[in-house]
């Protein structure tokens, strides 16, 4: 035995250790791989020995080899052996090797559980430390589950060295085994106040990481962190805490105010640049978020820095010679840009200057900023500059980034900033010359979008696209693999669809049928073939007009000659279309030979104008009476549907190519989305090896734009696609156009000024034109908006004729003069909708019913009105929900023609709105009431003040500094006949009961000769329904909700309701903000949600409603309101 040990240590003398290995590798530069493979053989021998020291040495060397990229997973078991050595030296080597080589799929990991547990409870703190460190790298869900308890105990270890490691590793454990978070959290929280700064910092670190994932759960820790922030001196901890507060403040606005002081103190006291930067950064993100604009202002005042000045400070950072500060300055600037775009915009010069920076990181940051700074005025200039950069840029990544940014900038908010689309088209065409870009798709979809939506530009676009098609060989060349040939897809489609704009359709047709087209990708060829057919129709039409019929026949012959090439295509889509069209043309040729006029019929194949349709439009089309979309046309077969679906999906991928353009565009986006998703997946997938797009060699070899090989082959063709206008031209042209416009305007202005010299004295500034002055040269069809709302009215128009009790409160201050007396106060007559469509529909649908009802109502009203004396003819209609609203305003918020002949009308259309649409429960206590004031009298109304007597439960939000009884000034004046809307925010504590608030409106009525002060009392009725928000709910979520058992049950019977079931549903949806979850015959489940997050579920049958809600009082009130709605019909 002793001999063996001696022998072992003698052997070791001759073994290589790590240093020898490194030296050896360095000495074998030429045959490194060979040397290493002999070393690995040696290591394998060493691992076979019993001596643990030899094994450890071998593992140590393996760790190094692993670093160099060699696979050492075969030695995993030996690593475990070394890990379990009792000597610290070897143990450390083993754990290091494990932390480098083990990953989740290493199967020996499960052998380590007990060893690690033993090490964790070792009396030697460094054994424990080493185990913790190693574990942090290779912890698996199993290990996390088995060891969570041991690690939790270690969090209260006597040695701070262990405590801090245990605290930190808990984060990894939480990630792998989330169930451990709840039991471990109290202890983690304790560690925030650990006496050792290292442990404290680790705890802060872990909680910050957790809070980054889900800030809401950590709001309760805010006071603790607040204390830490004021007491800690560790910059690391402070930075983390400030970052944490950055995540918390948006959730709890009150935090922002409290933070100002400590942050300001820090800013003044710290010398660490990193901390200072984080402070300023956080101050801006936190405090400038929308809920707190006033706060940011106060902070700036406090720091004696108005927002502009803060940006000025950043400017100093950016202008600093230290590139790091420059970068961070830009980063911070982009955060401010979101909240204060104006103050950043003035630094355009600086940002543009940064674009020229030699540092790519800085250029990318500057590009990000540019997006927010464009305006109609400077768009062309900025894009021109970017185009210059595109030409200069080296490296495809940066160039691609530039390209997407150019397109982003131009297309943002529906091409808002583009005044000249010819310019934009030529920019796009210029971009197609970019060599090796991946974004051909993007350019193509932009071309399509612009050509379809900007009608005025079509002629120009078609001409450009025809040129592109003519010079297609320039684009395709040797760049098949690149995406740029995608633009040919757009070009072919545009030329085909709008072929009437083509100057020389014949030439384009020939270009599209060139044999070289067959080298393009399949989906592009397919579009070529289809659009060649469209062009053919156009050509025939023009040729048949002539007397000479041979030309037309020649065209047919051309088609017949060229199409067979596509019929042979390997791509199914191309083949199918080509053979279809070929047969068609052959038939046409036959007819031509018989001298039959065919052009009309051929073009009829492609007739029909393309109208862009908003994506949401379908929703707005009313479902015809009697059509039940949910019922089966044919009973579904018993087997699952998904099988049927699958083959469809396979074809759907190829279909888009011949579908109508709108769909195509959607698909384009969809494709891009999918591609993005796939890329993301690949990026996250460690096993997916991507080709490195930018290795240095590629750089040097990649030819610049000037050296496209195609040009050398085809010497006769200049690189710049002939006939294509340069975008620069447009910049000049546009300048001229604007100048002309300006000059004209000035002329007009002068005239005007001459005419009324005593006018309001509004100075026309002849200086730089304002944004509004620039009129776009082309109009975009904006179709992202939804269709007009009238379709809703047609569906619900009948509701209007039924009457409800309106909470109308009329006040009288002085007796009416006879002349002023209102003869009739008829709501219904006033309902006549404004738009002609509405009108037609409304009257044609139920005119009789309406008139009879109206009469009755009018009578009633008359009686009532006569009892009340109305002074200046003021009405106040206060409405709790839509059912009331309908009476006054024909069912639509906004349309508001109330009572005729009365002098002045105020209509209150309360719209409940959640303050934060995300359903933030903390903010669920705010209700926004929109009030439309309409002046029906002949006098001018001003100084309106709106005041509500607060109740315990509901309070009008008043600006800071005003007393609880002060009124709110309505921020506008009303000339005669004008209406305007003001919004008032109420804070409501409990929403389970309906409420009425009393209020007054005071205002001054100003006549030519006199002015009087008037006062108007009103009541504001908040029904429970108005706290509900229509929230869609899926049936499975709905079922889960019902199963949860948290909901209280209640039900109500609907007496004497006899209306079709779907009307009943529509009514509940419309008046009470519910959405239908599921409907089976005459039974439907419905769902809604209150602004404070109560779930309200209904099961509606023809005669009764069963309801469940987590708040019984709220439910009772809602049901009462529903019942009331139906009792009144």
């Amino acid at each position, binding site marked *: 035995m002793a001999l063996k040990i001696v022998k072992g240590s003698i052997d*070791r003398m001759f*073994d290589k*250790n790590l*240093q020898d290995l*490194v*030296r050896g590798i*360095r000495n074998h*530069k030429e045959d*490194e791989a060979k040397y*290493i493979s002999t070393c690995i053989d040696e290591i394998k021998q060493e691992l076979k020995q019993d001596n643990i020291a030899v094994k*450890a040495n071998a593992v*140590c060397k393996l760790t*190094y080899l*692993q670093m*160099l*990229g*060699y696979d050492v997973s075969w030695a995993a078991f030996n690593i475990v052996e070394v890990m379990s050595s009792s000597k610290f*030296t070897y143990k*450390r*080597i083993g754990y*290091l090797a494990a*932390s*480098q080589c083990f*990953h989740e799929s290493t199967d020996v990991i499960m052998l380590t559980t007990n060893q690690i547990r033993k090490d964790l409870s070792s009396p030697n703190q*460094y054994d424990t*430390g080493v185990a913790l*460190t190693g574990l*942090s*790298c*290779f*912890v698996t869900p199993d290990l996390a589950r088995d060891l969570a308890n041991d690690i939790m105990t270690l969090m209260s270890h006597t040695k701070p060295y262990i405590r*801090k*490691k245990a605290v930190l590793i808990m984060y*990894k454990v939480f990630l792998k085994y989330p169930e451990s978070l709840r039991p471990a959290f109290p202890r983690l929280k304790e560690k925030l106040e650990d006496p050792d700064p*290292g442990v404290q910092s680790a705890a802060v*670190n872990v909680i910050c*990481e957790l809070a*980054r994932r889900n800030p809401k759960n950590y709001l309760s820790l805010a006071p603790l962190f607040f204390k830490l922030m004021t007491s800690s001196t560790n*910059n*690391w901890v402070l*930075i983390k805490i400030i970052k944490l507060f950055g995540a918390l403040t948006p959730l709890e606005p009150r935090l922002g105010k409290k933070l100002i002081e400590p942050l300001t103190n820090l800013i003044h006291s710290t010398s*660490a*640049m*990193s901390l200072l*930067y*984080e402070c300023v950064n956080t101050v801006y993100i936190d405090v400038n978020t929308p809920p707190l604009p006033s706060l940011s202002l106060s902070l700036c005042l406090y720091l004696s820095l108005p927002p502009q000045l803060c940006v000025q400070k950043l400017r100093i950072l950016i202008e600093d010679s230290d*590139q*790091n500060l420059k970068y961070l300055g830009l980063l911070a600037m982009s955060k401010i840009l979101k909240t204060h775009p104006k103050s950043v915009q003035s630094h355009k010069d600086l940002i543009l200057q940064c674009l020229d920076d*030699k*540092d790519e*990181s*800085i250029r*990318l940051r500057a590009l990000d900023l540019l997006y927010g700074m464009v305006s109609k005025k400077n768009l062309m200039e900025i894009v021109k500059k970017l185009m210059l950069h595109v030409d200069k840029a080296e490296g495809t990544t940066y160039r691609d980034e530039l390209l997407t940014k150019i397109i982003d900038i131009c297309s943002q908010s529906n091409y808002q900033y583009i005044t000249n689309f010819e310019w934009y088209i030529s920019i796009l065409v210029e971009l197609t010359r970019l060599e090796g870009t991946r974004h051909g798709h993007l350019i193509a979809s932009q071309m399509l979008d612009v050509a379809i939506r900007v009608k005025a530009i079509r002629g120009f676009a078609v001409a450009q696209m025809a040129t592109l098609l003519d010079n297609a060989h320039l684009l395709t060349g040797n760049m098949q693999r690149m995406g740029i040939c995608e633009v040919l897809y757009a070009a072919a489609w545009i030329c085909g669809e709008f072929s009437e704009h083509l100057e020389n359709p014949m030439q384009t047709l020939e270009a599209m049928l060139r044999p070289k087209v067959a080298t393009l990708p399949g989906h592009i060829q397919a579009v070529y073939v289809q659009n060649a057919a469209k062009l053919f129709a156009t050509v025939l039409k023009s040729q048949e007009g002539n007397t000479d019929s041979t030309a037309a026949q020649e065209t047919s012959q051309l088609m017949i000659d060229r199409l067979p090439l596509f019929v042979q295509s390997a791509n199914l889509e191309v083949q199918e279309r080509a053979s279809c069209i070929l047969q068609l043309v052959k038939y046409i040729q036959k007819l031509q030979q018989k001298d039959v006029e065919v052009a009309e019929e051929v073009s009829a194949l492609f007739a029909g104008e393309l109208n862009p349709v908003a994506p949401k439009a379908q929703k707005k089309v009313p479902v015809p009476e009697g059509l039940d979309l949910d019922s089966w046309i044919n009973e579904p077969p018993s087997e699952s549907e998904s099988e049927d679906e699958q083959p469809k999906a396979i074809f759907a991928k190829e279909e888009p190519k011949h579908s109508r353009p709108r769909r195509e565009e959607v698909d384009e986006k969809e494709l891009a989305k999918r591609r993005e998703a796939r890329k993301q997946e*690949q*990026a*996250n997938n*460690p*096993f997916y*090896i991507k080709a*490195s797009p930018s290795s240095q060699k590629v750089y040097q070899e990649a030819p610049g734009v000037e050296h496209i090989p195609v040009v050398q082959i085809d010497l006769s063709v200049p690189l710049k696609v002939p006939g294509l206008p340069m975008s620069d031209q447009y910049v000049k042209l546009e300048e001229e156009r604007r100048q002309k416009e300006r000059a004209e305007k000035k002329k007009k202005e002068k005239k005007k000024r001459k005419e009324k010299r005593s006018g309001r004295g509004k100075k026309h500034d002849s200086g730089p034109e304002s944004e509004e002055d620039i009129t776009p040269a082309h109009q975009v069809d904006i179709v992202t908006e939804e269709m007009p709302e009238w379709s809703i009215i047609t569906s619900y128009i009948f509701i209007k004729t039924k009457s409800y009790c309106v909470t109308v409160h009329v006040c009288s201050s002085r007796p009416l003069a006879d002349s002023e007396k209102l003869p009739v106060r008829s709501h219904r007559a006033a309902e006549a909708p404004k738009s002609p469509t509405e009108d037609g529909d409304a009257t044609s649908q139920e005119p009789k019913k309406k008139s009879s009802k109206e009469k009755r109502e009018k009578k009633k009203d008359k009686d009532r009105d006569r009892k009340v004396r109305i002074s200046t003819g003021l009405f106040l209609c206060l409405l709790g929900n839509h059912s009331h609203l309908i009476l006054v305003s024909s069912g639509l918020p906004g349309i508001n023609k109330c009572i005729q002949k009365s002098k002045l009308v105020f209509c209150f259309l309360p719209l409940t709105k959640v303050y934060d649409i995300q359903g933030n429960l903390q903010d669920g206590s705010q209700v926004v009431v929109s009030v439309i004031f309409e002046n029906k009298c002949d006098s001018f109304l001003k100084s309106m003040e709106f005041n509500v007597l607060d109740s315990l439960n509901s309070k009008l939000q008043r600006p800071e500094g005003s007393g609880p009884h002060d009124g709110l000034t309505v921020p506008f004046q009303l000339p005669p006949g004008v209406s305007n809307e003001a919004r008032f925010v109420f804070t409501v504590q409990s929403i389970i009961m309906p409420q009425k608030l009393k209020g007054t409106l005071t205002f001054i009525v100003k006549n030519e000769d006199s002015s009087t002060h008037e006062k108007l009392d009103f009541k504001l009725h908040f029904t429970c329904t108005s706290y509900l928000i229509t929230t869609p709910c899926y049936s499975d979520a709905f079922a889960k909700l019902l199963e949860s058992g948290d909901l209280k049950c209640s039900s109500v019977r609907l007496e004497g309701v006899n209306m079709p079931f779907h009307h009943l549903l529509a009514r509940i949806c419309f008046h009470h903000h519910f959405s239908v979850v599921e409907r089976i015959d005459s039974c439907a489940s419905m769902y809604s949600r209150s602004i404070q997050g109560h779930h309200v579920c209904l099961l509606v049958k023809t005669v009764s409603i069963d309801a469940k809600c987590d708040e019984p009082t709220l439910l009772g009130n809602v049901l009462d309101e529903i019942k009331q709605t139906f009792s009144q019909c």
Partner: protein
Amino acid sequence: VQNTVQHVLLQAEDMQQQIIRETFHLVSKRDDNVCNFLEGGSLIGGSDYKLIYRHYATLYFVFCVDSSESELGILDLIQVFVETLDKCFENVCELDLIFHMDKVHYILQEVVMGGMVLETNMNEITTQVDVQNRMEKSEGGLSAAPARAVSAVKNMNLPEIPRNINIGDINIKVPSLSPF
């Protein structure tokens, strides 16, 4: 020599090598007077990630961090790490790091653990590293017998490194990062 190795958490070996190569390629072609931040490419995990590096003579120390870390803070951390190396190796030079990769790892493990910052106080770090090295020595150590390598390295006449780690121009190339 790059320390990204530690931060790229255990990808497959070839992927790991590719990341290192790519990173080295990105970092090494940057001038000294540009900023120390690089926006993350797809390789290092997307836009939330940044490469933050410092350049000392022939050495690059690269950290790959997400947005929860402060940029300037990490630059400080790299400085702390390098100063710690300097203390532990007594005037560190490139060769120290090349021949004692394991020790570098042990030190790094006291600074960063499982991708999270563990300790930023240099004294604390050096104390812990020293204690552990002493333990190793008392156990006889792995390199007790063949001290050749150690002495060989120690005997090499390398220029002294100034306090602020502006390592002089050492004409020894970084060990091949792309061996294949």
